[in-house]
């Protein structure tokens, strides 16, 4: 993700429209988030499973029990400390991307093993934010 040509920037234009920028290439996409997220991009429709526990686990936690950043974002606040017990759906931290807040929720009950980022830090997709155990 360090090569700027690989960076995908998505800018919400409002009313379900998004501008997708990759280097100097720009495309308009449309999306509606719900239980599934529907995306229309260049004549193709994709359904990205989202809020089910399964998908949430796939998208934001890896096998080692780490919460990862879903998109390029700034860490706005960290609501937990190492050793603290958390419940499923607790907001452990809030990211900010594209002038929007993105709460990161715990996918399950557990204990925070380590915090791997700091408030104000810019994180890239896939970067580990918090490690959970239990």
């Amino acid at each position, binding site marked *: 993700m360090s090569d700027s040509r690989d960076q*995908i920037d*998505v800018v*919400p234009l409002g*009313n*379900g429209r*998004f501008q*997708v920028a*990759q280097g100097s290439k720009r*495309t*308009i*996409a*449309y*999306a*509606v*988030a*719900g*239980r599934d*997220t*529907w*995306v*229309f*991009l*260049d*004549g*193709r*429709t*994709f359904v*990205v499973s*989202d*809020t089910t526990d399964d998908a949430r686990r796939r998208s934001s936690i890896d096998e080692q029990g780490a919460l990862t950043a*879903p*998109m390029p974002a700034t860490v706005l606040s960290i609501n937990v400390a190492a050793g603290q017990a958390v419940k499923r759906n607790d907001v452990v931290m809030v990211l900010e*991307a*594209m002038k*929007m*807040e*993105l*709460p990161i929720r715990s996918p399950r009950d557990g204990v925070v093993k380590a915090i791997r980022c700091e408030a104000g830090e810019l994180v890239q997709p896939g970067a580990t934010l918090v490690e959970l155990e239990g």
Partner: protein
Amino acid sequence: MTSARPFDRVLIANRGEIAVRVIRACREMGIESVAVYSDADARALHTTLADVAIRIGPPPAIESYLSIDAILAAARQSGAQAVHPGYGFLSENADFASACATAGLTFIGPPAQAIEGMGSKIAARRIAVEAGVPVVPGETPADQSDDAIASAARRVGFPVLLKPSEGGGGIGMKTARSDQGLVETIAQARREAVAAFGDGTLYVERLIEQPRHVEFQILGDHHSHIVHLFERECSIQRRHQKVIEESPSPVVTALLRQRMGEAAVAVARRAGYRNAGTVEFLVEGAGDAARFYFLEMNTRLQVEHPVTEQVTGVDLVRAQIGVAAGRELPWTQQVLSQRGHAIELRIYAEDPARQDLPQAGPLLLYREPSLPGIRIDSGVREGSEVAVHYDPLLVKLIASGETRETARARALAAIRDYPILGIRTNIPLLIELLEHPKFVAGTIDTGFLDAEGDAIRARLSSSPPPEALAVAAAARAAGTMAATRSGGARPGAIDPWSSLRGTRV
């Protein structure tokens, strides 16, 4: 046409895009439109657009849109003077046309006798023969011996199809390409006919190879004028459901067009036809020497009528209403012309990646493209609920241009900019078809989609690219944000009815 309106009030006995199309024509003509709707369509586009809307029954069509009693009752209740049947449902039902007449209503379509005459394939074939129009050569030999069937095959001309006389659906059909092995093929066909239908009687028909489906639009008035409005090419179909239509046909030459147009008018005249109708032909070969055969006549406005409207400049629905009111056709054959090219794409609520599985659900997001040369005939809007009860046709996109290639490029650009979210549609398949080398070259025959459809569909199912995932993440983030601010509603939950209110139309 004269400026006085032909009717004060017209009932539209249909739903979806065609009901919307007729309502708009009525509005232009200063006629009050009366919509009918089933419970499934209480909030449908056609129900809300019409001047008056009357409930006719529960969702199943047999109890609503196919109920002659319910529709006549709605006509009485609304004080409508005429009924437009659209296509499908009761549009080719001679009993309905008669019942309208008995109830003192003008049926905006052909006379009941013409519907009846063309409703039977055998009667329609006889009418075509009487009109001197070629039909696919074939006969059921009275003598069913091997020798008699073999000589019938030679008379009809190779290649021939040997079909069970009692059959249908392609079961037990055998092809013979020459005298060689003919007797064995006849014996085999007879055995299969007996096995499938308990009757070994064989029908011998000329096999039309790589046929193209070309149809002519007909319009007749009550003053003995019948004109044709040129052809539509409808060869891209699957299991006899059309997917893309265009006018002119890429294979019809000027000479062939003239001969086919005259044949279509002859069939319509022989059938005592009035109002709008379509004469369908199979075309074999290419160029001036191509042969054509009468297939059937559709006694209604066709789904694909807009391509004719785009190239002739004629509004067929207005013409239908005018003719039904007894007005003369305002044009002669000589003043009608075909200008430029038009291509229609049928957008269906079905998943092309999964055997065209019909889709149902809410249209969470629906945005029509607005580009030069693009016409959208839609039966839905953002927030509409697509129900399982009816035909899966949602919308027709019609692209026009001075050349076929311009129209094709416009269709492609528009369909790529046509987001419909909440259900799957066949848009990815339409894109593949528009880009297919055979479509670009204009050489597609009616067997194309059934033969190559699987290979095309295999390209459609793929996992989302990173760009789509990034958009999904952004949409989820936006959805979560909105939910957080509004006090913890279910993240991303969207009520299309409430979200519509903020939409600028």
